[in-house]
């Protein structure tokens, strides 16, 4: 990771050398939008980088500064869906496609607002939702899509999960599993999530701290403070950040980093 990450990119300095995963992680959506308008990023940057690019709050949280291909990420908490969409936004801007497998309730307009390009979004509906059908469709999606967002159905046998993870590593896709967001109480500890990650490499807890803008009979939901805690297999200690999701300008921004004892 470079020491200083530029937060605005000048168009004339965009060359094949500067166009790496590092520069792409700068400045969330502004960089993504700028690059997308100027150059076909997927061809220049090479579609088989080891990591998918992510926006700046995530690059400080994730162990390798990006979404490592072949890994599975579990997100739980009251802000899980928005966090999952924000996680894949920059990668989709940069040329990857995202599949929503078995999650018909994801708000597409919210995805668009956080920066996910809807012309690279595909939804796969599974009916009936049995573990074997889910695993089959997930495997087919991983063949063609770099990012797959799904919700692991209850009672999936271990052998199916292991096959899913093998396929994930073989194809180099990224799996984002949104846990049922019932665990939104502040008492939900990080260790609870680690226990039921079912083999995830990175585990995220996205907790809503407070919504701002709504009064009693007036106002509207405008901003939300979210606390994101990330733990993972190759992380010695947890990382935690408080951020806006969405913030005053509509994006996903860090407020402050919190030291985890």
């Amino acid at each position, binding site marked *: 990771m470079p020491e200083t990450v530029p937060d605005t990119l000048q168009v004339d300095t965009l060359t094949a050398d500067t166009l790496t995963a590092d520069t792409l992680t700068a400045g969330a959506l502004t960089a993504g939008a700028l690059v997308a308008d100027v150059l*076909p990023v*997927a*061809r220049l940057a090479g*579609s088989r980088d080891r990591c998918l690019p992510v926006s700046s709050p995530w690059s400080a949280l994730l162990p390798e500064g990006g979404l490592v291909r072949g890994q599975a990420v579990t997100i739980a908490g*009251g*802000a*899980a*869906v*928005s966090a999952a*969409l924000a996680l894949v936004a920059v990668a989709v801007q940069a*040329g*990857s*496609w995202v*599949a929503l497998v078995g999650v*018909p*309730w*994801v*708000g*597409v*307009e*919210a*995805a*668009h*607002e956080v920066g996910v*390009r*809807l*012309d*690279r*979004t*595909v*939804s*796969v*509906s*599974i*009916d009936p939702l049995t573990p074997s059908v889910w695993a*089959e*469709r997930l495997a*087919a*999606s991983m*063949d*063609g*899509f*770099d990012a797959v967002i799904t919700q692991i159905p209850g009672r999936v046998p271990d052998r199916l999960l292991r096959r899913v993870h093998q396929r994930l590593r073989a194809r180099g896709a990224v799996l984002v599993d949104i846990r049922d*967001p019932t665990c*939104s109480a502040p008492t939900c500890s990080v260790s609870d999530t680690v226990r039921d990650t079912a083999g995830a490499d990175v585990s995220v807890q996205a*907790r*809503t*701290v*407070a*919504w701002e803008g*709504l*009064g*009693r*009979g007036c*106002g*509207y*939901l405008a901003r*939300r403070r979210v606390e994101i805690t990330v733990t993972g297999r190759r992380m010695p200690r947890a990382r935690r950040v408080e951020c806006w999701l*969405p913030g005053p300008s*509509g994006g996903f921004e860090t407020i402050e980093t919190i030291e985890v004892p």
Partner: protein
Amino acid sequence: MNTPNLGPESSEVLPRLVTIWCPDWPVIAAKLTRVPAAMTAGVPIAVVAADRIVARAPVLAAAGVHVGQRRRDAQRCAPEMVLVDHDPDRDARAFEPVVRAVADLVPRLEVIEPGWIGFEARGPSRYFGGERALAERLVDLVTGLVESPVGVGVADGRSTSTIAARRAATTPDAIVVVPPAASAAYLAPLPVTWLRAVGDADGDLVDVVARLGIHTLGALAALPRPDVLARFGLAGVRAHRVASGADDRVAVASEPAPERQVERIFETPVEEVAPVVFVAKQLADALVGALMAEGRVCTKVVVTAETEHGERTERAWYRDQGLSAPAIVERVRWQLEGWIAQPGGISAGIVLVRLAAVVVRADDGTQVGFWGGRSEADDAASRAVTRLAGLGGEASVTVPVWRGGRLPNERYAWVPALSVDLDRSVSRPRGRALGRGRDIGPWPGSLPVPSPAKVHVAPIPVEVVGEDGRVVRVSGRGEVDPPPARLVSAGADRVVTAWAGPWPVDQCWWERRRHRRLARFQVVTADGDALLLAVEHQRWWCVAEYA
């Protein structure tokens, strides 16, 4: 060249081509296949794809509805019209009988799209005793089969023939025969907007030309070609050629090299269309990939399929902009479904499918596609889409299309991914305009940004009560009584810490069936969750969550 070109190059010989054109075929197809929305008598219908009008009944033209218009603008012009979603498969199925009937008369035809057939005039016109006789025979044939207006145009070259057929559709006897070498004179008085009919001159070029004061094709043809090239580039030269009566590109008549033909022979006959289409996708990818490596693109492909008993279907498909792999697969599917659905059907499984690229031309980069062209990721995604559609059915793989509305689940429609030709990005609003952007103005009555991240597929019934336990009611004047204090859902009783509303919706009040009157509320509960609630007929629902 000192003199302005007023016709095709003298070395070019343009074949006489006949074009059969059924205007607004998607509308006719909706009626023929008995789409429920289209069956009310006396109500004009229009077909919509991705929020734009694709085809409309002729009576709507007077009201100001035209192809390419945004849905809301069209509805403003003609509120009584009924809208039907575009389904290219439905159009192709409805057009099959017409193609088969014309194929009985004319052995070698090519289908450009449902509603549009072209073929060479020389053989059939001699057989039927002249071009006019042939055209009359075709008009009788088509009008006898389907209740559709039709136009038959006979002229030198494909572009003039196309324009002639479209003009013929508006004349009483539905036939226009342009004498040989008289194309330029025929086209001269026509307005430049006719360039759009030919297929690849886009709206921007036509607008610029019109603003420069060139209003007729004759005026465009009178300009010296080198100047047109300098000012407008290759697209302008093509338009200039069309205006002069030539084809937009010089025809290349060469036999395809053997490797421009791909086929697959099945060891065990295949009874269903889906596996054959899956194989066709691989073949089409291989064919288009090989051509692209040479810098060429296929404009005419012949699709052949044979059964074990020797029954055969062979059809030529043409598209001016070049056929991409998904476009070829789409046409293979139409052809196979039409073949199997014909009276009598086929008596055995399919053993052979072959794609032959008959006419290829150098790819001069005018293919409309994604910005930057297709990348490896795009190709991988579209292969995965085909595979998933094969596993779960076409309707299981969908892409979001902007529709607009006041409730979160109405804003976007999910459209089967295979029915959207990913190359036709001109007809879909581009990335930015998919939800916001300069194109689409503010939607009156829409909810403020940020939008909820979790939108329930079916609204969940909840109860909202005040401090005293009474259910919260919203009066017609927007008074909320009592103020919400607790939210009861799924057995859990949560305290409401903040709320706002009512934001009323009163839509389609002029139509009893579709009238909806509800009020929306945003609510935050004690555990920090934010929800979007709606109350309709005094019943509360949770529509979405800000998860």
